[in-house]
């Protein structure tokens, strides 16, 4: 394994915060008191919370060590399907940290927040151009909240038509947030199977689309990495029955400059700025999940909205049909700043980003053909779904392959999703991986597959290099210990 990045090295243990420190220590500078203390009614005063006291260097070491136990995009290739783990440019973080952005109060008068409002306004226009949709709200705080917003728009639309509808079509390949968001909004998700080619067939939709169905939640490209080629026909069927088409655009990284979502018949679309638009994932957020709609649905968008009048920007809540407010303020502004910076840095080259994302995925697919089973052997878009089918004889599973990849120094792909592929291994390289890096990943997979045949225990015991080995998740869930 000489040439692969994975190696053994020194890492440093670190206790839990409250196993360290001493009362009386404080790792933060407190301002000098310059006003008199005012005694407080004893009845209101509580106990001092039992937080440990640490010096500044103790805090710094603690979190420095913790950070070193993590693997990020900056550590190496992170082909986590459906997550678009592309490079997160450092300049964008720096821009979001500019004083004027990072320390701006959200309730500043419009006069004192022109820059932020303008940025939001322009980002909305940019996303509209990129998707081909008409109007955008940046408010949803992540993809799932974007979905919720979208579902509420479907709800509001049907209510406005005087006919609330109960059901929504959700394909079996959908991400878990789709049915969950639909349900949160009171819709009953109705499943539909993808066809033999891994994509939806108009026939299947026609069969279940009815007057009590609010619409469909389609993911395009879908979670098999396949373009929903019948999207227009499907949209027509849904529209023909009075429904609306919601598109989960988490996979937009395949389509920039290539696909026009509006023309596909999509009425509502959400994007993940923390995927397609390069904002860092932060170990699980914060993200941002803007929604884009056609002109006729614009009136339902969440409030407040940024409006432009001449060259002045302001916030308006004056949209009586709006689904309302989704966020304490306007959404993840700092994330928007990073996405805006990314889009301007790329400009029309966003198309080339999608080109290369798709090229990389197809290349992985071509090179791993015969090594891993390919769920649907057709041209894929930005990601490609394999499985452990060919390895079953050696009793090695997707999980084992994933864990073994860690020893090789790669982040594993997404596993066991989408659910329609048993033992799925979902690889999304993204466009920022070079051919060399991808070749190395391919070699790693090949080597692991060989190990699976020759010495499956190597995979079963993996990972061995990491600070902790496989964790007992069963007992974690059976006897939950959630605080210390």
């Amino acid at each position, binding site marked *: 394994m000489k040439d692969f990045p994975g190696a053994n090295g020194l890492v440093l243990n670190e206790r839990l915060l409250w196993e360290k420190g001493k009362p009386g220590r404080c790792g933060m500078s407190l301002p000098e008191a310059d006003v008199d203390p005012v005694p407080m009614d004893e009845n209101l005063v509580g106990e001092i919370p039992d937080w440990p006291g640490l010096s500044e260097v103790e805090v710094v070491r603690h979190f420095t060590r913790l*950070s070193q136990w993590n693997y990020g995009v900056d550590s190496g290739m992170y082909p986590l399907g459906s997550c678009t783990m592309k490079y997160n440019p450092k300049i964008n973080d720096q821009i979001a940290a500019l004083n004027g952005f990072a*320390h701006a109060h959200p309730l500043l008068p419009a006069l004192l927040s022109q820059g932020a409002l303008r940025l939001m306004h322009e980002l909305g226009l940019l996303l509209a151009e990129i998707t081909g949709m008409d109007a955008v709200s940046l408010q949803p705080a*992540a993809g*799932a*909240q974007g979905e919720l917003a979208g579902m509420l728009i479907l709800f509001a639309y049907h209510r406005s038509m005087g006919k609330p509808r109960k059901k929504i079509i959700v394909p079996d390949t959908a991400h878990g947030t789709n049915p969950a968001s639909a349900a949160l909004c009171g819709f009953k998700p109705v499943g539909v199977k993808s066809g033999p080619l891994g994509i939806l067939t108009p026939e299947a939709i026609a069969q279940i689309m009815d007057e009590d169905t609010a619409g469909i939640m389609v993911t395009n490209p879908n979670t098999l990495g396949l373009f929903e080629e019948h999207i227009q026909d499907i949209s027509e069927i849904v529209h023909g029955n009075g429904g609306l088409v919601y598109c989960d655009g988490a996979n937009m990284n395949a389509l920039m400059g290539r696909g026009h979502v509006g023309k596909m018949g999509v009425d509502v679309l959400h994007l993940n700025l923390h995927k397609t638009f390069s904002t860092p*994932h932060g170990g699980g957020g914060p993200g941002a999940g803007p929604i884009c709609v056609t002109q006729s649905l614009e009136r339902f968008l969440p409030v407040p909205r940024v409006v432009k009048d001449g060259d002045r920007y302001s916030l308006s809540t004056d949209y009586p049909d709006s689904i309302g407010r989704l966020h304490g303020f306007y959404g993840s502004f700092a994330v928007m700043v990073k996405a805006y910076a990314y889009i301007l840095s790329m400009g029309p080259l966003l198309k080339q980003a999608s080109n290369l994302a798709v090229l990389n995925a197809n290349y992985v697919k071509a090179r791993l053909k015969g090594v891993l089973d390919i769920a649907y052997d057709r041209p894929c878009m930005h990601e490609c779904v394999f499985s452990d089918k060919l390895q079953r004889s050696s009793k090695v599973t997707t999980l084992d392959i994933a864990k073994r990849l860690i020893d090789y120094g790669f982040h594993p792909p997404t596993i066991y999703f989408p659910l329609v592929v048993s033992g799925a291994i979902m690889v999304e390289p993204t466009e920022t991986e070079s051919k060399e890096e991808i070749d190395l990943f391919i070699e790693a997979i090949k080597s692991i597959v060989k190990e699976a045949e020759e010495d499956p225990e190597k995979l079963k015991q993996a990972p061995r290099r990491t600070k902790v080995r496989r964790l007992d998740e069963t007992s974690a869930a059976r006897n939950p210990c959630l605080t210390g």
Partner: protein
Amino acid sequence: MRYLPHTEDDIALMLEAIGATDLDELFAMIPPQCRKDGELRIPGPLTEWELERTAQELAETMGAGRDYVVFLGAGSYEHFIPATIRYLLGRSEFTTSYTPYQPEISQGTLQAVYEYQTLVSRLLGMEIANASLYDGASALAEALLASVRITRHDRVAVSQALHPHYRQVAETYLQSTGFEVVELPFDGDGRTDLSRISGEKGFAAVAIQSPNFFGCIEDLQRAANLSHDTGALLVVSFSEPLAYGLLKNPGSCGADIACGEGQSFGVPQSFGGPGLGIFATRMAHVRNMPGRLVGRTRDLDGNRGFTLTLATREQHIRREKATSNICTNNSLCAVAAAMYMASLGGNGLRSLASMNRDKAEYLKRELASAGFSPRFSAPTFNEFVVQAPSGFHQAYERLLEKKIVAGLPLAGYYPELDDCYLLCATETKSKADMDALVREIRS
């Protein structure tokens, strides 16, 4: 382009391996009518240096930074953030990793979030906390939904002294569910009037905020008793968790769910987002809890380790039956809060909280002496409402020109509070800042 590593050669070789002649061919499956015609009509590509300048120009228009003295709170608080946090949080092992689905290479995030869950629980006096939600507003919505699941009642009572935006978000979340939201008025001392619920049954939750939107400290104990009498859970919302460095915490007063905004703990204000949705409750309710949870466990060798747990509540397992649709949460903000809480420690927290209150009390007194009487009589923490002399709004505009933002006019939120302003003074406001405000107001 520096983000795109492919050389022409690379592309040619890769196309060959795929068996395609050009990049266009890779998109052949997109029906012509679904394609984007022509190139994207967007500006750029900008160089790093053009971008930086563009962004700086936008940022400089903002009423933020050292030149401005901003007495705004109302859900977003200006607190000092140690340089250590900015540095540590910027380490790319924290920023560029995904949700810790592979625990063996995510122990850093996992342990930090576990620490966050613990310290937040200790602060709020609750048994458990989740790994974060989006913000204080959606945390309230999730708390109300959880209450409905737990109690199987379909009405919730929400205080009108709860942040108007939080209430609006809760309404948005609840609008399509058919659950009823009953609003509880506030009384003359600025606290929630709970008489509406006493004796009534069928509430899933009674939700109040403390300190509330007016900065007033609610009587949580009484609210708990009354709520529990009606069979409802007490949901305590908050926008300023620092207050619990000084005040009795929700748990000790009997709250069932404590949820709110954690931005005060080391998260930059950033024009309102991202925030940090804190959600804490009792262990009994864990399976109804929304959002991710990190739990402690052991690895194959018996060593301590951490992992996401109880995922069967979540959308990726339970799909439409999940306790919430949330997936990506605000993890990095939770880690920031862990760093902040670790830096401050218990004693530091108490000192800082006391200082916040002392500053606000000073400002309150000085404003009173300038004719701005407190609108409510209940005790407050670091913000409070004053009744301004009529016509003050002109002076308010004049103060803006002097780079002073003299609080939030409340008329837009509560028409009955015309001429009332909500002012906040944290540790970032010096006596000199406050004296300058009062001097300007007087002049």
